[in-house]
Each structure stands twice: as structure tokens, then as C-alpha cells.
């Protein structure tokens, strides 16, 4: 009896959490299909906002830029981060500890501060605002995430596997490709997803570093809201959410697959 009650309470609590997490998102998604531009009920189904969105070239270019920057960030941060992790794992050098400790603060420093610092820095060295600055900034933000996830995976790697491969005549490159990388692949994928998410969701740093009128999707959404809320934005946001969730499902499946090895 008591047990049933507690079980019920637990389920209710879980439901509450899910409502807390998903209600705003569901409301937004619903409103993107509501005909009224002022969020008026009763709900009346309409695909008009999606049509508007499709016709809005600004949204399209911003979205394309966002995806492009996120993809480039993923590739660069994953490549740099993975090689950095392997170097940190394999070699002992002066200042290694300091370097490892210095990797973590950027995760904790508020993006607002990092963004300001980057803006000042890029102006000082002459890069200025624009897509290159945004890309460099995103890579810098994403790098620690990649290093942390790949290093976590590497910490369970048995270095004698590399020695064994070398004893059989494999060159460093073959060892890396055939032995080390397959082992850390799940970590690299997870790090890459982090990097994509950090870049694609990035508002603060993008806002500071991008040129006006030449922005990423989150910045465009923000500026549109300031001008006046249109349900078009709901439509964009809904699509982003669906895509993000799809990516996360894939990631979950992949990492389980990787964990089996």
C-alpha cells in the first residue's frame, strides 16, 4: 500500500519534470502551427508560418551559415582536440600539468566575458568582426569539450596495444589509424557532437563577433524577437528542435554501439 503510494508519487514527480522540460517547447511548436499571429486561442491549424519561413531568405542564409560554421567548428575542434588529447596522453613534457589545468577554466568562464575578450582581441590583432572571427571563437570554445571527452576515453586505453602493434612492424601512422583511433572513436564522436552543439547553439560569442546583417541563426532569431515577435521564429525553432533531437538520438545509439567494444 505504502509502496504503491510512493511509486505513484515517483511517477508523478517524473511527469512533472517532463512537463517542466517540454511544456514550453511543445507550446512553441503548437504556436508555430497556429494561424493567429498574436498567439490567440482557439487553436486554428495553419502551415502559413512555415511558408513564410521558407520564403524568408534572411533566415535561410543565417541557417546555412550556422550549419556551415558548426560543421567547420566540429571538424577543426575535433581534429585539434583529438591530437591534443593523444599528445597529452602519450608524452610527458614540461608544463603538461599546467596545460591540462588551464584547459578547464574556459568551460566555466561566462561566455559573455569570453565573447568580450575575444572581440577586443580580434580587433587588436586586426581580424575584426566577421565569419572568420566567429569560426575561430567557436573552435576555441569547443576545444576544451573535445579534449575532455576524448581524454576520458583515452584514459581507459592500454598503451601496450600500441607497443604490440609496433612490435609487429606497424608504423606510427598505422598504429594510430588501426589501433588508437578505433578505440577512442566513441569519444571523438561525442566530442564532435559537443563541438557542433556549442557552435550551433552559440549566441553570445556569435553576437559579439559577427558583422551586423551577416549573422548566425541564433543571433538572427534574437534580433527578430527584438524587432517584434513573429510566429515564423517559432517555426524555425521547432525545426531546430526536431533536428537537434534527431542528432541526440543518433548520438545515443552510436555511443552505445561504441561502448560495446
Amino acid at each position, binding site marked *: 500500500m505504502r509502496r504503491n503510494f510512493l511509486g505513484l508519487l515517483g511517477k508523478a514527480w517524473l511527469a512533472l519534470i517532463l512537463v517542466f522540460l517540454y511544456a514550453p517547447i511543445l507550446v512553441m511548436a503548437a504556436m508555430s502551427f497556429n494561424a493567429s499571429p498574436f498567439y490567440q486561442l482557439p487553436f486554428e491549424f495553419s502551415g502559413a508560418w512555415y511558408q513564410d519561413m521558407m520564403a524568408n531568405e534572411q533566415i535561410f542564409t543565417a541557417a546555412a551559415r550556422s550549419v556551415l560554421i558548426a560543421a567547420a567548428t566540429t571538424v577543426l575542434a575535433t581534429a585539434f582536440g583529438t591530437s591534443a588529447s593523444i599528445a597529452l596522453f602519450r608524452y610527458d613534457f614540461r608544463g603538461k600539468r599546467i596545460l591540462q589545468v588551464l584547459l578547464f577554466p574556459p568551460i566555466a568562464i561566462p561566455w559573455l566575458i569570453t565573447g568580450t575578450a575575444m572581440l577586443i582581441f580580434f580587433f587588436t590583432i586586426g581580424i575584426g568582426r566577421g565569419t572568420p572571427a566567429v569560426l575561430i571563437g567557436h573552435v576555441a570554445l569547443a576545444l576544451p569539450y573535445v579534449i575532455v571527452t576524448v581524454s576520458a576515453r583515452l584514459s581507459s586505453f*592500454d598503451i*601496450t*596495444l600500441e*607497443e*604490440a*602493434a*609496433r*612490435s*609487429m*612492424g*606497424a*608504423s606510427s601512422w*598505422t598504429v594510430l589509424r*588501426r*589501433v588508437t583511433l*578505433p*578505440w577512442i572513436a566513441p569519444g571523438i564522436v561525442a566530442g564532435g557532437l559537443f563541438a557542433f552543439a556549442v557552435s550551433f547553439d552559440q549566441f553570445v560569442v556569435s553576437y559579439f563577433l559577427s558583422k551586423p546583417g551577416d549573422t548566425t541563426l541564433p543571433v538572427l532569431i534574437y534580433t527578430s524577437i527584438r524587432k517584434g515577435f513573429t510566429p515564423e521564429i517559432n517555426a524555425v525553432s521547432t525545426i531546430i528542435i526536431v533536428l537537434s533531437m534527431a542528432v541526440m538520438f543518433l548520438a545515443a545509439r552510436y555511443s552505445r554501439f561504441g561502448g560495446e*567494444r
Partner: protein
Amino acid sequence: MSRVEVSNVTMEFGQTTALDDVSIAFEDGGFFALLGPSGSGKTTLLRTIAGFYFPKSGTIRIGDRNVESVPVEKRDIGMMFQNYALFPNMSVADNIGFGLRVRKVPAAEEKKRISEALDLVQLGALANRRPSQLSGGQRQRVALARAIVTNPKVLLLDEPLSALDKTLRVDMQIELKRIQREVGITTIFVTHDQEEALTLSDRIGILRNGRIVQAGPPREVYDRPVDEFTAGFLGEANWLSASLLEDLTLPAQVDGHRFGTRPEALRISADTPDAGQNAVRGQVRQRIFAGAMATCLIDVGGSQWKLIARDRDIPELPGDGQVWVSWSPEDTLVVRA
């Protein structure tokens, strides 16, 4: 298959000298055990021969080639690691075939050689398994097959049996010896288990503090150890105090030497032993029965001796425990003082 020769090799890690002017030769086709306590440099010597470390000075020859500055992957060795180091993401066959693929052996020949290697270690049925699906002994066989499938010049084994339990270890010793004979490969084997070294190898080398203390056939090293350390490391020894030496027949000058015996060389008797035997008086402290064998702990001139004999060869002991302990003069151990 080749002779391996290490000459005057010194190896340092920072301030510590891991190998101190080591010279030793490993004959073609021989089974050689490197034995020593931890930190003696035996693993360092093996890894230096493998090419994981480059010596500070000295030369290493494998066959007719000087390799001291050649990296591991170019030395043409086979190595087996303590934890086997099988690739977890590859099947048994792919693990064994790794070195063949690296050498770009044609696919048909690769397949043939993998199956020959699998037959040699009697694992033919498990080619498609993953290492995680194998038992400890099976993993060991895969590691061995992987190490020899490329026909390397020398096989290096780094404590390969230490992860197995006792019974499996004895089986694998026999197996390892059989395969080594069949393949005829020069084998160098690191172990801290002296029984394993004596059982398996044609020659053993004892290391201590980065130096080779003694090298030779197992029986010779056991019977004629050069110093107290080697005598104690390969087995047990009782040492004669100076006051006991007078009436004994000794094979060498007393000056500069110490004398002792192996526990199993001793006989115990209540009566005076035959002339011609070395004999000392002793007081039995304890007689430990262990089935076929028995151990006696005897106080001889103030130091505790150990005697091991078949239980039936030890006579009824007198009430006061006073006995004669005797041995043949040629069984006396002579070491550097």
C-alpha cells in the same frame, strides 16, 4: 631466427641506471630466461632488445645487423606482453593477421599463415571470436600465435605466464616449450619465477641492479652460483659460519669465499656419518611433515639451516634433538665472499 648479441649496453632513465654495461649473447634457436627481482633491469633489457628503448651506449645485434638505433617496428621481432595486448576491436584471426597485413602479405598467403598459426596453438575453431570472448589461456595462445606468425628473428616474452593460475601455467609452460622447439625460434623470456626459468630454458641469465650476475645452463647456475644472491634467488641455501670450516673438506681456498649447501643435499643422522663426508653437529628445532617430503629446521653453530628430504629418509630423531648433518664435499656451494 638469429643470434642476438648485446654488448656493453648502458641504459639510463633520468638519474637511474637501469642497465649497467650489460653484455650477453643469446644463441640461435635457444630458449633463454632472464631472471631477477623487480627493478633488476630484466624487463628493461628485453625492451631494449625489442627497441622500445635506445641504449645510451653499447651495441645490439640481431642476426648480422646492428639494431641499437633501429626503432621497434623495423627490428623484425615478435613480442608477447604480460597482459597479452590483444586488439579488442579485432577478431582472433585479425589479431594474428595484423603483422602480415602491415607487411602487405598477399591475402591468400595471409589466410594460409593465419590458419597455420591457429593450428600451431590449437585454436583453429576460435578464429572469428573476439578477445573478450576467450579465456585467459586462449588469449595467451592467440598472443603467441600473433607474435610468431610473421617469422620474426627473435621472440621476446615479457612475463607471459604470470597472469595465469598455477595449473594453467604449468600446461602453458609445456605448450610454450613445444611450440618454441617446433618453430625453432630464438626466444628470450623475462620472468621473476625461478622455477619457470629453470623448467623452460636452455640458459638463464640472472640480473641484479642492472647487471648480469651470472649466465649459463640452469643446472650449472643452480649448482655453481657465483654469489650468495644468485644462490638465494634460484633456491634456498644454508651458509657455513667461519668457525665450522676447520674439519671440512672444501673445494676452494677459504679466503675470499663463502661456503654453503642446498637444503636437499643434506642428510641427517643420529650416528657419526662416514668418513669422507662433510659433517657438522646440529640441534633439530622443528620437523615439518609434508607427505612425501619433509623439512627440518636445524640450529647449526648458531644459524638456522633448512634440510629437505624424503620423509622416509629422515631417521627417528634422538630425544635431545642432537644430530649430525652431513653432505658430500662436491655438493658444497662456493661463492664469492
